[in-house]
């Protein structure tokens, strides 16, 4: 300890203190501040870039997920639409069938009714014609009978026979 005190050089202490304080002040202004600021701003830049990349990645994933969702929705919608179309088709066919059937039935009924009325009309006409013919025949018969009595009788007989045969 005594040796240390003896060795102590005040001049060296003085210069060291002075130089070192000066060095700290000068370095702070001309070196440390610009260096630390540059390092810090660079690190912030790197951090910002990394954050942005991470964000972009997340956004990309989100976008992909939403795309997938959209696709899924479209697929479901298509399926639903197709199912609906199939149903409509089946329904339309069934309806058409029903309609056709009822129409046919109606036509058949109509035709039958028409046939029936035609038949009636034909029968009526036939009856009329028969009556007319009968009248004509009767006229002729009357005319012939008027000329010959036996013939008249004969005619009536044959006519009656005919009518019976008829």
């Amino acid at each position, binding site marked *: 300890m005594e040796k240390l005190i003896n060795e102590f050089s005040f001049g060296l202490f003085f210069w060291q203190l002075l130089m*070192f304080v000066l060095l700290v002040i000068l370095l702070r202004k001309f070196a440390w501040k610009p260096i630390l600021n540059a390092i810090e701003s660079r690190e912030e830049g790197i951090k910002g870039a990394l954050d942005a990349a991470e964000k972009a990645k997340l956004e990309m994933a989100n976008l992909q997920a939403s795309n997938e969702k959209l696709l899924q929705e479209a697929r479901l919608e298509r399926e639903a639409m197709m199912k609906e179309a199939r149903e409509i088709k089946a329904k339309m066919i069934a309806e058409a069938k029903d309609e056709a059937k009822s129409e046919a039935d109606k036509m058949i009924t109509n035709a039958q009714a028409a046939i029936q009325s035609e038949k009636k009309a034909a029968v009526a006409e036939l009856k009329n014609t028969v009556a007319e013919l009968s009248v004509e025949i009767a006229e002729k018969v009357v005319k012939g009978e008027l000329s010959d009595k036996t013939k008249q009788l004969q005619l009536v007989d044959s006519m009656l026979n005919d009518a019976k045969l008829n």
Partner: protein
Amino acid sequence: MRKNILGRLLTLFVLLFSFQMGAVEVQYSEEKGATDVKSEIKEYISHHLLDSYDFGLYSYTNDEGNHEYVGFPLPVIIWDDGLKVFSSSRLKHDEGVAEVGGNFYRSYHGKIYKTDAAGTLKMDADNHPEGRVHLDFSITKNVFTIFVVSLLILLVFNRMARSYKKGAIPTGIGRGLEPIVQYIRDDIAIPNIGVKKYKKYMPYLLTVFFFIWIINLLGLTPMGINVTNNIAVTLALALITFLITTFTANKNYWAHIFWMPGVPPLMRIVLAPIELLGTLIKPFSLMIRLYANITAGHIVLMSIIGLMFIFKNWLGSSLSFFLAFALSLLELLVAALQAYIFTMLSALYFGSAVEEHHEDH
């Protein structure tokens, strides 16, 4: 490529190292007896650890038996009845007497003494010379080294700072230094001081780390520089740490010293002087640790190198060479380690000074 650089560095180191030994050898090759060599080596080591008034690279004894010194003189500045400035060449390496303004001065073991015209030194009871000039502001070898290193640091880091203007990544030497700067910030300053307050301490921490590291490394070169094994230098550094701690301390720090929270009042009174002493012991330990580590490193390394000239046979000397070489590598580590420890502990003290109050203790 990397292997190549490593190889070159190793070669350079071996070369420098062998120069260092050469410096010792030249001086002692002329010596005769083994006991003589021992005391001479001891003398040389103690001389090496002292400051000197000129920048001596090495000295040797020429064929005529005179000491020849290789180096250059530095200015001597003393305050003794007025400012006196003269060249250290007039002191002639402790052998001459410089006459300045009617007074006579001579140097002895790295200190200036006021003497008579003949240069006689009166020894006191403890065998110390009388008449030491205390106000000695000479640009000694150590002061000169401090100037050079300061200038070097300023130039290198200013260059590094300017290289950031060209792009986000520094160019040249800054590329290698940037990880160290970041290390000091991320692993020393922020964990110890806290992310909110570390910024104002960064200039000091960075400066003290690079200053101690570079000056320690210079101490391992064969130029015989040893700045950090001067108690004056380490005291100056520790004092700055102490002053920064004291003047930036918050209320919480002082409360923990004078009125320790969470202990009984009687204990608080007992603790106050202990804590107050602790504030002084902390920087004191910084001062002693750096001084002692570097001094011990120099003494041990030089002693082992000195062993070569005591053994004077191929087995002992080569053994001593490899021991000294291994120790030199270890000293390289110590140079960085001591700078790290000083910075780390300074950051720790600053951290305790600005620590916010916690409820949990």
